[in-house]
């Protein structure tokens, strides 16, 4: 039987936010909060940093724009120059639209795949699902989980700590074998 961490249930979104603040202040790093819906102010309560995704999207957008412009320049003025209604071969105003489109496309790729990378998606299983009661998190329960990878993790201490800050149904996550 391997241990993966401890979970505790809270009754209201507000209690979850306060619990998150206390867990953060106690110095835990590898913890997470689970709720049926997004809660405003949770990022601050958990001490999450601002997402780096924007920079990924920005870099991808810029790459896409340069790629689009470069591609058209190469095709129309180097590889296959063609006279289109008497316009110059390097007709850069005409390139703006494809440049823009490729910028949008690359940014969208950056956004989707960057988000998946940062969230470790796809992921088909997570230790919290070893708890049977945890399925309530999709309807009316709010959970905090502290994982074993946390440097401050000590099973007994974590259990009593979660109880102290108002958690109920405290459970240690263990697999079946």
């Amino acid at each position: 039987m391997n241990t993966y961490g401890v979970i505790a249930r809270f009754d209201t979104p507000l209690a979850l936010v306060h619990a998150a603040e206390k867990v953060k202040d106690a110095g835990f790093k590898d913890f997470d909060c689970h709720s049926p819906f997004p809660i405003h102010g949770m990022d601050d309560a958990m001490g999450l940093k601002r997402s780096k995704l924007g920079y990924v999207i920005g870099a991808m957008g810029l790459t896409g724009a340069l790629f689009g412009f470069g591609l058209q320049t190469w095709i129309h003025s180097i590889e296959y120059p063609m006279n289109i209604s008497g316009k110059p071969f390097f007709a850069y105003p005409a390139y703006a639209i494809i440049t823009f489109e490729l910028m949008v496309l690359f940014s969208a790729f950056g956004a989707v795949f960057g988000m998946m990378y940062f969230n470790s998606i796809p992921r088909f299983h997570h230790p919290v699902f070893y708890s049977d009661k945890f399925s309530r998190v999709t309807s009316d329960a709010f959970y905090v989980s502290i994982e074993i990878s946390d440097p401050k993790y000590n099973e007994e201490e974590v259990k009593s700590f979660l109880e102290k800050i108002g958690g109920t149904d405290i459970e240690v996550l263990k697999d079946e074998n």
Partner: protein
Amino acid sequence: MKLDSKTYHYSSKKSTNFILMFAGIALLSIAWFAGFESKEFYFSYLTSFFFWLSIILGAMFFTFVHYAFSATWSVAIIRVMENTLMLIPIFTMLFFPIIAGMEMLFKWLPDHSYWLTHSFEADHLIQHKLPFLNKQFFLQRAVAYFSLWNVIAFYIYFTSTKHDTDANHNALIKLKNFTMSPIGVLLFTSITFAGLDWLMSLDPHWYSTMYGVYTFAGSFLAFLAFLTFTLIRLKDQGYLKDIVSEEHFHDLGKYLFAFTVFYCYIAGAQFYFIWYTNIPEETIWYLHRWVGSWKTISILLIVGKFFIPFFALIFRGSKRNLRLLQFMSIWILFMHYIDINFIVMPTLHHDGFHFGIYDIASMLGFAAIFIGGFRYIMSRSPLVPLNDPELIHSINHRNH
């Protein structure tokens, strides 16, 4: 929550403001007197007039959006917009020199000097447009725009300021109904046609179907820059403390960024269509702006009105940095002036960009009138709608 009344009562000396306004009017009158017979004056006057008027039109649009959607975040800054609206009566008066100089400005009038050497009757395009572009209809339209704008300004301003004293929340419903009524459609139509009448018809052979939205995009961007600048200035002077916060400036920064992109999109679309189709009477407009120093101005517009604000405002940090935002709002207003100059002036100076004494005089004159009038109107009522039930939410507004 109790607000300190000192932070929302703007105090400025009435005498200073009136002196400023009279100085502005005097400067414009002297310039008019000196340049009564000169085309130069009327073109400079039209440039400055439209520059300042577009700020008021942008304010009108923002006020409409605010009330029509019952916006919450902008409640704390709505009064500054409403104060801008009340400059419309002064600008109605300031339109008269343009009527007086019509023969100098508009080529489609048979009395214009261009027709001394060309045949008016033989110009098929002008003849075709005569039902729309004639003196009588032009003046009727001007009267219609200004009456509409005055009605809008007076109704919104007085309904909203009355709400401060009698606390009757029906005022908000009235304003919502007013802004959601067909008057909103009329406002857009009037902005579009004002752009066509006063700017596009300077070159009556040329036309662009993007022109109305181009006028609107420029106006709204200029107003956003003006609003941001004013609010930062008010905060520096100690007003609106604890009312307008970094969060509001963050949103204004987003607006500035978004409408920089929107302006570029519209201006770009107008250019691409014309460049692509390559029809002589359409491309001539851009050709006039691609000779001599106008070419420098065209490139300056692309770089200065799009690339610089775009890369300066794209970061979250820069939208929350008031000094940078203040600099960018001045920069955007400056670029808006260049933009209006780029639209109006090539009709007069074919060879290149000129910045003469009439440009300086009319710009300073209008600035004095606008700032004096604006400071006076601001001191007349509280800087925030005190009885708006959403005010508290607007003060506590946060970006996520």
